[in-house]
């Protein structure tokens, strides 16, 4: 809606839509600021998306910012100030929903903005359910899952293969690491208290359910390191500080395959999450044109599949999956390391974004109070 009216304004209402697009892409800014998470993930984006794009567009300057962690706060402040300095922002799905809610991200028509699959399937079908918000352009599917050390003597040769082993200090003694926020932990705790996966949120809505979840978490409270940054668990596992910890599957991949540490993955009850682009609301015309051009390129079937050469996150397009090949540096087959691989995805869990939007403030306060005591 917004996009359409903006384009109409810029070119005059009389022109027909195809003309509009051609005209609009004529005037493009020669620099753009992309915002991402830094680290290996950003490197994979640079190598798969922006390097080839820059090779096609001589003289284009690409500036990378690593502020995705604070994207919502930053964009809100930018909007207050009326000075939008970002052109394209990589955020997790829940942040995209928030940004869209607050009117800070631009709503787009996915079929118009994004390229169709090679066989002509329109983008909205190719991405399918992963388009969780009108502003959200999905890139990857990642998961929060567990890694454990393979050299723990006390475990007597057993390896954990069930989410409830996290809370089983008897058979799997040792320090754990869990994220310092309720999201994910509460669900896992309830699932190990006998709640069926599909009932978790209904139970968590009740006072009794929250208490049940905390009671389960209580069992490991004192033998857990609570992490806040994605790099924490890999470091802790490598040091032997913890024997069992949750983190993003891509971090574990790099720990196991690239750094060659004695660590293995437990995929049971992995929590799927999405990551993708949003375009800030209110970009000037030339910058918007540049970004639209870049996004169309960077989210096409081949580019999404290319990213999987550098990091073990699953491409968001259905049509990209068959194109996933081997790791660019290690030469190993990447498909078995994807969270979406059938062997890994026997039992998976998807965040209920809407539910957490309501209960985040409340449960977070309770969770922090519980932690501090």
């Amino acid at each position: 809606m917004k996009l359409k009216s903006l384009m109409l304004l810029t070119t005059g209402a009389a022109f027909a839509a195809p003309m509009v697009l051609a005209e609009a892409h004529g005037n493009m800014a020669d620099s753009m600021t992309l915002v991402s998470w830094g680290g290996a993930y950003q490197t994979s984006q640079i190598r798969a998306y922006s390097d080839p794009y820059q090779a096609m567009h001589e003289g284009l300057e690409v500036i990378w910012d690593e502020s995705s962690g604070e994207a919502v706060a930053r964009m809100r402040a930018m909007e207050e100030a009326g000075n939008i300095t970002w052109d394209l922002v990589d955020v997790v799905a829940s942040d995209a929903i928030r940004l869209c809610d607050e009117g800070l991200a631009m709503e787009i028509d996915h079929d118009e903005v994004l390229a169709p699959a090679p066989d002509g399937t329109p983008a909205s079908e190719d991405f399918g359910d992963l388009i969780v918000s009108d502003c959200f352009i999905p890139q990857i599917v990642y998961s929060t899952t567990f890694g454990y050390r393979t050299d723990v003597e006390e475990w007597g040769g057993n390896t954990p293969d069930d989410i409830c082993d996290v809370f089983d200090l008897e058979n799997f003694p040792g320090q754990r690491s869990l994220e310092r926020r309720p999201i994910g932990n509460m669900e896992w705790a309830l699932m190990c208290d006998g709640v069926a996966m599909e009932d978790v949120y209904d139970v968590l809505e009740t006072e009794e359910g929250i208490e049940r979840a905390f009671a389960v978490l209580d069992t490991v409270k004192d033998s857990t390191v609570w992490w806040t940054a994605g790099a924490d668990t890999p470091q802790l596992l490598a040091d032997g500080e913890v024997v069992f910890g949750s983190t993003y599957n891509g971090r574990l991949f790099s720990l196991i395959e690239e750094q060659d540490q004695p660590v293995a993955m437990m995929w049971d009850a992995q929590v799927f999450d999405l990551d993708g682009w949003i375009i800030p609301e209110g970009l000037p015309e030339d910058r918007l044109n540049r970004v639209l051009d870049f996004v169309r390129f960077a989210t096409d079937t081949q580019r999404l599949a290319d990213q999987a050469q550098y990091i073990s996150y699953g491409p968001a397009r259905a049509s990209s999956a068959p194109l996933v090949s081997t790791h660019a540096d290690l030469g190993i087959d990447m498909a078995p390391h994807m969270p979406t691989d059938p062997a890994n995805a026997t039992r998976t869990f998807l965040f209920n974004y809407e539910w957490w939007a309501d209960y985040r403030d409340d449960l977070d306060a309770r969770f922090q109070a519980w932690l501090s005591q």
Partner: protein
Amino acid sequence: MSATDAGDMSRAAADARRADAESTGPVLAADGSPLKVSLNRALRAQKLRALMLIAPLLLFVLVTFVAPIIDMLFRSVENQIVSETLPRTVVALDDWDAETLPDEATYAALTYDFIEAAERRIHTRLGSRLNYETTGLSSMFRRSGRGVDDVGEEYADQFIDLDEAWEDPVAWAEMMASSDWLAAQSEWAATLEAEGEDAAGPEPLFQLSDGIRTLLPETADAYRSFARTVQQEDQDSPLEEEPWNSVYLALYRDLVTVPAASVVEYDGVGAEMLVAADTAVDGFETVDLRAVWEDMDDGWVEMPIWETIEAFSDPYTAGYFLAAVDLQLTPDGIEQQPDEQRIYLLLFQRTIFMSLVITISCILLGYPIAYLLSNLPLRTSNLLLILVLLPFWTSLLVRTSAWKVLLQNQGVINDTLVWLGFVADDARLALINNQTGTIIAMTHILLPFMILPLYSVMKTIPPSYVRAAKSLGATQWTAFWRVYFPQSVPGIGAGSILVFILSIGYYITPELVGGRTGTFISNRIAFHISESLNWGLAAALGSILLALVLALYWLYDRMVGIDNVKLG
């Protein structure tokens, strides 16, 4: 200017006054003016010169530092969002009894407010704001935003069935708008057509005609809300857009209340349409607004939402400050938060307690070092001072991560202790990710801030006093405790307050090594700024922390004097 100098001057002034009083004629300065005037002038000039020298910096600090802080603190009471997003609802709730659900008119006001908010995409923002107070409102507002444009659709259909003209944007605009605006708008449209967007500039802002505003107040208000939103949000002309369903709702509500006679008397544009409609509305099928809102979300026919809007309708609120001390604003007044959600008082307590422990450890570790440094020959003490300054010049982040490596379970200290046999391999000390970790790392980081002021005070204590005490028969300890130590107390005071003030606001180190129990209130402030986005609460917590620090500063200034801080 030295103190003696000033003394001279004031003495001279006093002399002058006395002379003035005693003699009949005034004492004259060299230039012939009375000495009193001349001295005053000199004093004023001096004051002015001092202020001129200070002014640039003062201005600089006020603009770059003080203004931002005040601006942020202001957020802790600011609450315009409710009355700005739902202006009509807030007014309608003014004389609500708070016992039963609000009346139909309030639901109508809510409809007008909500559709505009949804079109401007600010309703979810209010939803997240109110969700801090009552859980569940965030998704309720989001859901309602999707359905609200259908409220009043039944009336729209009935009006359009009656006369197709009710569907015509132009007919609506001509009926509602002032003639001046209509002229300005058509001129704008012509310029846009002929010369393009740049020449045309923005659309002239929609204006109501006076007649319609008197006749149909709700409709006029609803239409203006629609017209301006369309102009500002979508850059479209109201002349090309069909009004929202809420406008038809307002029209229905106006027509059933306005006496038929005044409609008949009306002579503005579209009078016939109005008269026809007015006679027909009595036969219209009516809609229960409350039920419509209930369909969108059950929450709208329950009390909590209305109580929350009512409680937070003022443009300023104490709510954030209450939340910052574990209280909450409820319809029954101020209450304690439920047990399991109380956290901030605990964090404030912990912050103060840990800062105290850190300050005391700094005194215990810093005193011997400062003592040693001040009693060694300058050559040696300067070399040792490098050892103090070196950590001071090393990045805080690096030192913190070094402590991580040293303190963790499998870290250097534990490994050494196990190797020495002091600690069993399966009972390693938990030195990090708890309060111990924060205290050790922060003591290390803040120790130079204790040593430097202590050292500068101790350097000025003449060694002859202690020697005199000893020659008079005092033991080593007595001489130290009774003679030397009291003289070093100002240094302890200066160092302690400096360390305490700095540690109370620490953020990075507790974040990295504090774990579950070793974090400070600052960590929570940072969390609310960048993650939960509850900026009001962050500002309230910050204000309390700032008040605490300022009180300490005041104490410090009274006890030590800020001029007496020395750094190396």
